[in-house]
Every structure is written in structure tokens, then in C-alpha cells.
């Protein structure tokens, strides 16, 4: 099985979010970066598991500048075989999707994996875009994937339930919790990653049809109103009469 996994780099979950340049840009000062958890924990690990079981290869792809190489090396240390970095500073989901689709077309993969969304822009769009560029089925929010030969069964989260989908390769899939368990790279993996091939390619032309122009922090809470733990009648009253929420 020839598998492609899209990985992105996101600010660590504990990052303090701030903006600069008249609130038009994310302030990267002091930000630690991680691999987007859904890409790392679920998409990448499940792809590696499939390869381990059935043979084949796992390629990871990232669209970004050279400073992303560290994140890509981590994916190689976890067990991907090789990597593609499209050398660009992306401004929109459409741009990223176009780059991934070009590489996916050229590589002829059986499955393209990505996380269900990134934890920074929470777009959840790139998988769908790549699938449309490739004219392939797209299964989002996959929590389970079994594949033999060119046949696959996928379970995905839907509101209040689970959907089971049977389909044949090739397809695009976005990964959610349940698909796999996080793997910590071991020393051998880290050593091997240094020698694994990383191909840097230049981007193809693409548009940025939707871009961020400004940011805002949500209004801070005005302060908590403490209610006597002995008097829950008072809390009920506040929720009804003051907050008017029930």
C-alpha cells in the first residue's frame, strides 16, 4: 500500500495566543510548535500500522518553509519512510490543498491521510479540497479503518452516532480520535530519521481565495460569581432569572 500523510505544524496547545501588527498577524514570539495532534496521533500512526501489516510505504507531506523540517523529521522518526516538503509560506487552505493534490497525483497513492482539522485554524477543509482535486471519495472524521487489498471499511463520527462506509481505494481520509494510539519516537527511530529522504519541491501556482485579515481575542470573563455550596436553590435561581439560560 502506498500511503501519503499530510502533516502540519501548529502552536503547542499551551500557547498563549496573541496578535501583532495591528492584530493582523499571529504573534509567534515565544511560541513552541508541535505536529498537529490529529495528524500525528491518528493519521500518521494508522498509516504506519497499515504499512507494517501489509507492506508498502508511508510518505509524509508538509507545505511550509525550512523551519518545518524539525516537525517533518519527527514524523520520519515515528516511522514514515520519506517526506516531501513543498517550499512555501502558505496563506490559505486552498493553496495548501492544491500543492498536496499535485504531489498526490504525481505519486499515485492508495490513500491520503490527514488529521480531522488543525488545532490553530480549525478549518477542516484541506482534506475535502484535496479529494475534490483528485476526484476521489473523502471520508472525514474516521475513528476506525481496516483495509485489505484495495477494499476498506471506515467508521466515522457523525452527530449522535457512527457511520460505517465500505469503499475501494484510492480515497482521502481525515483522522479523529480512536483511529490509532499516539506513538512516541524511540532512539532508533530518531537516528534512522536523519538518513531518510526529504524531498524539497517548489510550489505550483495557486490562488488564495480566502485569507485572514484580522484577529481578535474573545472578551474576558468579568469574574466569577460564587454561590454558597449549601444553597443550590440560589444557583438555580441565578441561571433562570439572571443568566436566563434555562
Amino acid at each position, binding site marked *: 500500500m502506498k500511503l501519503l500523510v499530510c502533516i502540519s505544524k501548529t502552536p503547542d496547545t499551551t500557547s498563549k495566543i496573541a496578535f501583532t501588527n495591528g492584530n493582523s498577524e499571529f504573534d509567534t514570539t515565544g511560541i513552541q510548535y508541535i505536529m498537529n*495532534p490529529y495528524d500525528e496521533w491518528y493519521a500518521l500512526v494508522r498509516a504506519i500500522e497499515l504499512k507494517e501489516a501489509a507492506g508498502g510505504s508511508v510518505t509524509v507531506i508538509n507545505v511550509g518553509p525550512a523551519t518545518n523540517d524539525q516537525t517533518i523529521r519527527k514524523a520520519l522518526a515515528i516511522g514514515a519512510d520519506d517526506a516531501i516538503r513543498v517550499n512555501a509560506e502558505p496563506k490559505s487552505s486552498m493553496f495548501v490543498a492544491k500543492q498536496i493534490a499535485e504531489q498526490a497525483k504525481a505519486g499515485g497513492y492508495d490513500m491520503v491521510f490527514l488529521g480531522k482539522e488543525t488545532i490553530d*485554524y480549525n478549518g477542516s477543509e484541506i482534506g475535502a479540497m484535496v479529494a475534490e482535486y483528485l476526484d476521489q471519495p473523502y471520508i472525514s472524521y474516521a475513528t476506525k479503518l481496516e483495509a485489505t487489498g484495495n477494499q476498506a471499511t471506515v467508521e466515522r463520527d457523525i*452527530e*449522535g452516532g457512527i457511520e460505517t462506509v465500505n469503499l475501494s481505494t484510492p480515497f482521502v481520509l481525515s483522522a479523529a480520535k480512536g483511529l490509532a494510539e499516539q506513538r512516541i519516537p524511540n532512539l532508533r527511530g530518531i537516528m534512522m530519521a536523519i538518513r531518510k529522504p526529504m524531498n524539497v519541491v517548489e510550489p505550483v501556482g495557486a490562488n488564495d481565495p480566502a485569507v485572514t485579515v484580522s484577529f481578535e481575542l474573545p472578551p474576558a470573563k468579568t469574574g466569577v460569581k460564587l454561590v454558597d*455550596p449549601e444553597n443550590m436553590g440560589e444557583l438555580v*435561581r441565578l441561571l433562570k432569572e439572571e*443568566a436566563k439560560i434555562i
Partner: protein
Amino acid sequence: MVLVYAESPGGQLKKAAFEAITYGKKVADLLGVDCAAITLGTNVADAGQLGKYGASKVYNIGSANLDGFDSQLYTKAIADAAGQLGATTVILSHTSTGKSLCGRLAVRMDAGSVSGASGLPTNDGSFKVTKGVFSGKAVATYEINTENKVISLMGNALKPEDTGAEVGVDALGIEVGASALTTAQSKQSGEMVPLPEAELVVSAGRGLKGPENWGMIEELAGILGATTACSRPVADTGWRPHHEHVGQTGVAIRPNLYIAIAISGAIQHLAGVNSSKVIVVINKDPEAPFFKAADYGVVGDAFEVVPRLIEAFKSST
């Protein structure tokens, strides 16, 4: 024209469909155009109701091939309908279905897209719309610079507004191919409203010590008609099912009321819940970080406070 795709799994219009049409109508008013709705599949019940919420026309593509969800077929059907009707803006719901469609449709329609929009657009020469980013820690304004636009609307972002009259439903003659997928569905959350749609949520954390103590959480949720949720370690240890895990790496929610019981309020937990309108925190530790994000707080032992709260709700109704 603004075209709103109204989701109707199993033939029943979703609550999200009424939110989307209400939003679509406002977008149409802003652009000075008409708003229409489209439903997909056979036997969609009461689609004419969408007229009350702002659709001047309701269309249906009544192909049985659209009765199960396939993002490829749905994308083609909606894009073809938009082409035939002359719609340049398409509104979707930011659901498991809408998330599979938004980017696809944008590519197919050569459109700029914003997924998970939380606010109404503005149009002062450039078309802008807001959405939550960094898992609810900030709000970003996006500019869409293309003629065609696709927006998926976050759940609970606005209230459906019933102001108009029911309209008739017109069949739209659009060819739909056969799906390459076979799909089946099973229910999971029983009678509760699914978390992403829930207006009231009762959530509990590791402080409850074990799954055997969730009886009072379920009882409280039952009285309120709320949906239950939990923190990540609670789902990771299998005390509660995965689909209840809320936060940065779980489900992101924005209910009207979020009651957090014995949850410390770690930054990753807050990220997925801090768009809730009102937050109540019950925690025995007065220093728990969650109190900083709360509207109402109770410092006390959950095993004493929650039963009292249940009684108080019971006697207030």
C-alpha cells in the same frame, strides 16, 4: 442568489438546517439577493417549513442515490444546482456532513470558503466573515475575494428565526450518478441531543474518581434535558465513551450552558468549551483554574453539591 443546503438525514430536517437558512437569509439581505434552500434525497419531510425561516424557494433533488451520504455526489449535486439556479454563495452547516463538503464545494465552484463561520458577514466593498480559531481562543476575520463563496455555519451560532411563511417545494432535474460507497449508520448517544448541537451540557472530570460515580451526572443531565460530556483523561481511561471528550483535541462545543464538575480547567480543556455562553464550575479546589473562565462557581465537594443541585432543579420545576 444565496443557496442554503438544508441537511435532512433520514428525511428529517436538522436543527442546523434551520440555523443555516436563517443565516442564509441574512447573507442574502446583505448582498441584496434572494435566498433559496435545497434538500437532497427522497422523502424529505416538511421541507416547505424552510420558507418560514427565510427561503423564498425550496428545491429538492429527489434521487435515491443521495439518500446515503457521499461527499463526491453531494458536492456535484449542490454545485450543479447552484449553477442552474445562478447561485454564487452557498451556505452549509458545519456538521460532519458540511465539513466533508465545504472545501470540496469550494474547489468545484472555484470559490473562496470559510468553514465554521460564527458571525454574519459584512460587505463594505470586500466580503468578510468571522470564525473561531485556535480552538476558541481567538476570533479571526476572513476575507473572501472570489465571486463564488462557500460558508459553513458553526452550530448554535445563531437562533433560527421563524418570520415568514411555508413555501412549496420544486423538484430540480439534476442528474446524479451512483455512489461508489456503501454506508450504514448506527445511533450512539441514545436519546440525548448530540454534543455539537446541544444547548445544555453537563460535563465531569477526573475528580469524580471512577465511572461508577456518573449516575448523578446523568441524572442532572436528564433533569435539564442536557447532554453529558467529559474531560480527556476520563475518556482516555475508558470511564466514558470517546465521543463525550470535549476540548482542544475532542469535540469543540458552544452551548448556552456548560456545567463543569470536578474538572480543573486545563488550557486544552478550556479551548474547546470557552465559547459557551454561560459556564458553571463546581470544584472543591478554590484555586482551580476553571473558576477564572466561569460565570458562576461553587467551591465544594461534587459528591455533596451535585445531589443538592439535582434536588434544587427538581423542586424548581
